[in-house]
C-alpha cells in the first residue's frame, strides 16, 4: 500500500522535516534532527549508553548494538535492511547487531514520506536511509571521541572496523561495549562524515543475514497471535454476511451454553463471543442467532457489478491525463486496436490471520499487534476507549504477512479489539482473532476493475493515439486520507501506472469512473499497479504484434526517455536469451513496470504440459532499486512478489452472489503452492541512486509477462483474470 498517490523518492525538500542537508563532501549537517530526537525520553532511560538524541542506535556495555526499527517487518526483511544501514556507518560486527521495534511515536518514528508512523508504499529503506546512516555515523564518531579521550590520541589516529575501535600507533583497541559508557558522555556531533559507498562493507553485499531466520525456524519468534497475557480471553466476532449489514437483534443463549464461552457482547461491527480459547469462542459464535438489517448492504452479485462497470465505461469518466488530442489522432489512424480487461476483487490472505491483544493498564491501555500504521492504531484505539493517544502503548510484533491488509485508514481490527475491551469493561486482556473465513469473507479487497483501451497505429505501425478508461472503486475516497489522496476527483491509486504510463506517445487520454459500494476495498501489494501494469503491458504487446514488431524492440523504441526502464528490459531480455528462439514448444513474454521508485522487467517462459494446460518453466527478473542494501533480500522480494502475483493471476478471485462472498478459506480461495512455483532468476542493476523499495515492485510485471507468453504460445490474449477462468492454466 502507500499513502502518497504518486510516490517519489525523498528529495531534500521532502525531507525538510529533518532539516538534513547532504553536502557533496559527504558531510551531513544535522540541524534540528537532534532537537526532534531528544523527545525520546523512554529509550534514553532504559539504556546504559544511548546515542540519543538519535534514538535509532543504542550501544550497551555488553557489546550489543541495538537498532530501533520504526517500520513493521511483515516478511519483507526490513528489520534486517534497516539494521544493515546503521551497522554499515557504525562499522559494527554484524553478529553484535540486535533489533527492537520502536514504540508508536511521531515525529520521532514517523515515516518521512507519510508524516505519520507507517509502513507501506515500499518506502521503508528509502525514507530511513539518511536518518540511519546519520545515526550509525554519529554513534561511531562518539565511540571514536571516547577512545581518543581515554587513550590521549588524536581522533584521526583511530579507526573502526568489525566492531573494534583501534589506535594503531598507540597500540590500543577496545570493543564498542568497553567504550559504551564513556561514549555516552560525548556530545552528539554537529556533523558526521558518511562513508563513500565504495567503502561499504555490508551494504551491497549479502554478509548481513536476516536477523529473524533463527527465531522463525525454531518457533520462537513471537507474532501478535502468540502473545499471552494473564487471564486473557479470546474473542471472535460475528460480522454481517453482507457488507454494510448491521445487527437488528440477536440471541446469545445457545452461545453462552457452549463450554469455555465466558461472555457475549455487542460491538459496532457485530457480536463478539469471548471464551477461554479461540476454538471455543468460534464454537460459541456458531450458536449465535442474529438477525441482520441489510437495508444499506451491498446485495449485488459480482456479475451485476461488472455489468454496471461496463455501462459506465460506455461514457467518459473524470479526466486523469490528457496529452495532445487522442480522438483526432484515432480518427486519422491507419489501424485501431481495442481491448477490455476485467480484474477481480482479491483478498490479501496473509498467513497469520488478523489479530490483536489489548488490555487496560494503570495509565491507559496497551496493544500487541503487527500492524502497518502504528500511530493511526494508537489514535483509533484511544478514541474508542476515551483515552489520549499517548495513553495507548503499541507493542509492535513480527507480522505474519500483510500485503497491505494490516494498514487500514480506520485501523479496523484494532478498533474492534478496543471495542471488545470497552464492552467488557476492561475486565481482562482480550485477544481478537479473525479466523481464515473471517479474513476471506471480511472484505477490504483489492478492488475489482474494468479497463477499456483503444489505440491507433499509423501506416508504419507507430502508436499515435492511446485511450485508457478505468472503472472501479476508489480506495481512498471516504477515508481520512481522501483530502490529500484524491485530487480533482481522481484517486491516484486507481490510475497509477496508467495515467503515468511510460511510453512516449503523442496523444493520450486516461479517464476514470470511481464507483461506490458498501464493500470495503484496500491497497493490495503494488496497489494500482496490480491491474494497470497488466492492462498497459499486455496492450502494448498487442500493438507490437499489430505492427509486426518484436515486443522488446517495440517497447524500447518508445522508452528512449526512460533509461532505467529500458535498462531493466534489456537486462531481463539478455539473461533470458530473448534474442534466441525458445526451445520447441516453448514461448516467452516480457513486461516492465516502474512502481514505488523502482524499475522491474520480467521475462516469463511457458510451455504446454501433458495435460494441455500451460506450465511456467522460468521467470527471469531484472530490478533497479537504486543502491541494493541487502542484495539477497532484494532477490527474495522479487521471488516473493513473483509468487504472490502468480497465485493471484492464475486462480484467485473474490466473487459475490447476492452480496455474499463465494469463497471462504484456502479450499476455495486457492493460494499458490510449491508445485506451482517456477524457477525464478533475479538480476540486480548496479546503481548508486538513492535506494527505493522492493516489497511491491516485483508484483506488477509478472501477470502481463505471463499473459504475453501465453499469447506467444497460443495466440490467445487473456483479458480477464484470473487465468483459470479461461481454462488455460
Amino acid at each position, binding site marked *: 500500500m502507500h499513502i502518497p498517490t504518486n510516490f517519489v523518492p525523498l528529495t531534500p525538500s521532502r525531507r525538510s522535516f529533518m532539516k538534513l542537508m547532504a553536502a557533496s563532501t559527504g558531510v551531513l549537517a544535522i540541524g534540528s534532527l537532534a532537537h526532534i530526537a531528544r523527545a525520546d525520553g523512554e529509550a534514553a532511560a532504559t539504556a546504559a549508553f544511548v546515542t540519543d538524541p538519535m534514538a535509532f542506535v543504542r550501544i550497551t556495555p555488553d557489546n550489543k548494538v541495538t537498532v530501533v526499527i520504526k517500520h513493521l517487518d511483515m516478511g519483507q526483511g526490513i528489520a534486517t535492511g534497516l539494521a544493515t544501514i546503521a551497522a554499515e556507518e557504525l562499522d559494527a560486527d554484524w553478529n553484535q547487531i540486535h533489533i527492537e521495534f520502536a514504540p508508536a511515536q511521531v515525529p520521532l518514528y514517523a515515516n518521512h514520506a507519510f508524516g505519520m508512523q507507517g509502513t507501506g508504499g515500499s518506502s521503508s529503506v528509502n525514507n530511513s536511509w539518511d536518518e540511519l546512516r546519520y545515526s550509525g555515523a554519529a554513534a561511531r564518531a562518539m565511540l571514536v571521541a571516547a577512545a581518543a579521550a581515554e587513550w590521549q590520541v588524536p581522533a584521526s589516529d583511530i579507526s573502526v572496523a568489525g566492531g573494534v575501535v583501534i589506535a594503531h600507533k598507540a597500540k590500543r583497541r577496545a570493543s564498542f561495549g568497553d567504550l559504551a559508557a564513556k561514549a555516552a558522555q560525548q556530545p552528539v556531533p554537529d556533523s558526521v562524515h558518511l562513508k563513500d559507498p565504495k567503502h561499504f562493507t555490508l551494504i551491497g553485499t549479502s554478509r548481513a543475514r536476516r536477523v529473524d*531466520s533463527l527465531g522463525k525456524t525454531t518457533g520462537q519468534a*513471537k507474532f501478535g*497471535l502468540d502473545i499471552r497475557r494473564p487471564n486473557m480471553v479470546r474473542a471472535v466476532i460475528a460480522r454481517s454476511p453482507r457488507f454494510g449489514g448491521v445487527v437488528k437483534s440477536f440471541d446469545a443463549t445457545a452461545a453462552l451454553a457452549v463450554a469455555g464461552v465466558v461472555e457475549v457482547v455487542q460491538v459496532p461491527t457485530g457480536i463478539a463471543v469471548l471464551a477461554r480459547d479461540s476454538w471455543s469462542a468460534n464454537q460459541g459464535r456458531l450458536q449465535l442467532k442474529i438477525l441482520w438489517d441489510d437495508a444499506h448492504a451491498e446485495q449485488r452479485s459480482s456479475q451485476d457489478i461488472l455489468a454496471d462497470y461496463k455501462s459506465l465505461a460506455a461514457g467518459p469518466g473524470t479526466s486523469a491525463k490528457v496529452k495532445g488530442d487522442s480522438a483526432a489522432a484515432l480518427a486519422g489512424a491507419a489501424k485501431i486496436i481495442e481491448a477490455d480487461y476485467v480484474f477481480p476483487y482479491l483478498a490479501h490472505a496473509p*498467513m497469520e490471520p488478523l489479530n490483536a491483544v489489548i488490555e487496560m493498564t494503570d495509565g491507559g491501555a496497551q496493544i500487541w499487534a503487527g500492524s502497518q500504521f502504528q500511530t493511526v492504531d494508537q489514535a483509533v484505539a484511544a478514541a474508542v476507549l476515551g483515552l489520549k493517544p499517548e495513553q495507548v502503548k503499541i507493542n509492535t510484533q513480527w507480522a505474519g*504477512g500483510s500485503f497491505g491488509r494490516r494498514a487500514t485508514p480506520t485501523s479496523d481490527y484494532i478498533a474492534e479489539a478496543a471495542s471488545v475491551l470497552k464492552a467488557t469493561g476492561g475486565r481482562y486482556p482480550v485477544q481478537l482473532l479473525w479466523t481464515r473465513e473471517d479474513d476471506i469473507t471480511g472484505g477490504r479487497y483489492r478492488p475489482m476493475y474494468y479497463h477499456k483501451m483503444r489505440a491507433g497505429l499509423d501506416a508504419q505501425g507507430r502508436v499515435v493515439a492511446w485511450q485508457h478508461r478505468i472503472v472501479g472503486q476508489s480506495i481512498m475516497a471516504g477515508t481520512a486520507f481522501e483530502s490529500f489522496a484524491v485530487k480533482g476527483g481522481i484517486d491516484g491509486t486507481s490510475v497509477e501506472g496508467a495515467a503515468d504510463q511510460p511510453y512516449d506517445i503523442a496523444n493520450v487520454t486516461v479517464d476514470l469512473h470511481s464507483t461506490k459500494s458498501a464493500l470495503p476495498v484496500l491497497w493490495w501489494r503494488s496497489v494500482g499497479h496490480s491491474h494497470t501494469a497488466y492492462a498497459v503491458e499486455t496492450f502494448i504487446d498487442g500493438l507490437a504484434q499489430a505492427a509486426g514488431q518484436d515486443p522488446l524492440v517495440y517497447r524500447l523504441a518508445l522508452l528512449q526517455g526512460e533509461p532505467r526502464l529500458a535498462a531493466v528490459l534489456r537486462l531481463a531480455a539478455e539473461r533470458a536469451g530473448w534474442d534466441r528462439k525458445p526451445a520447441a514448444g516453448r514461448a516467452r513474454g516480457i513486461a516492465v513496470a516502474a512502481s514505488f521508485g523502482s524499475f522491474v522487467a520480467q521475462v516469463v517462459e511457458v510451455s504446454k504440459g501433458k495435460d494441455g494446460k500451460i506450465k511456467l518453466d522460468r521467470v527471469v527478473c531484472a530490478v533497479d532499486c537504486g543502491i541494493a542494501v541487502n542484495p539477497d533480500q532484494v532477490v527474495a522480494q522479487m521471488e516473493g512478489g513473483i509468487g*504472490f502475483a502468480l497465485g493471484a493471476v492464475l486462480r484467485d478471485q473474490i466473487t459475490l452472489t447476492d452480496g455474499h462472498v463465494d469463497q471462504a478459506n484456502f479450499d476455495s480461495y486457492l*493460494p*499458490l503452492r*510449491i508445485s506451482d512455483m517456477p524457477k525464478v532468476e533475479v538480476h540486480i542493476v548496479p546503481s548508486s541512486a538513492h535506494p527505493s523499495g522492493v516489497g511491491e515492485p516485483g508484483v506488477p510485471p509478472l501477470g502481463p509477462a505471463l499473459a504475453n507468453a501465453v499469447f506467444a504460445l497460443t495466440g490467445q490474449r487473456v483479458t480477464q483474470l484470473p487465468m483459470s477462468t479461461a481454462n488455460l492454466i
Partner: protein
Amino acid sequence: MIELTVNGQAHSVDAVPAMPLLWALRDYLDLTGTKFGCGIGACGACTVHIDGTPTRSCQITLGDAAGRQIVTIEGVSGKVAAAVQSAWKKLDVVQCGYCQSGQVMSAIALLTGQPKPSDADIDGAMDGNVCRCATYQRIRAAIHTAAANLRS
C-alpha cells in the same frame, strides 16, 4: 481432563475432547510455535509430528491425540532437524516466517523418510504447506542443502 504427551512431557488439558489439538497446544500449553492458518487442514501451518508422522494439528481432536507422542517445533531434535533448521538459516528462507514452523516440520518428516528427494519429491511432500510470501524456491533449495549435509 485430557492427558497429552507433548515433546516428551505429560500434560493435563482441561478442555473438551472434540477440541482440535492445535488449540490445546496454543491456548492451553502456550506452545505457540505451532501456528493457526486455516483450521481446515489446507495450509499446513499447524503441522506437528504424531508418532513420527507429520499431522495437521487442526484436524486431530484431543480425544484422538491423547496417549500418542506429539512433537512440536519447540521439541524437534536430532540430526535431521538440525540439518533442516541450519539450511533454512543459511539460505535465509524465511520472510514473514509464520508458515515456517510447519514447513520445517514437513521438511524434517520428508528427509527422515527420503534422504535424497528430487524436486518432484519435495513438491509432493511440501504441497500442503502454503507460504503466502512464496518462499518456495528457497524451501526447495534448503531441503536439497540439508539432504546434502546429512549425507556428508
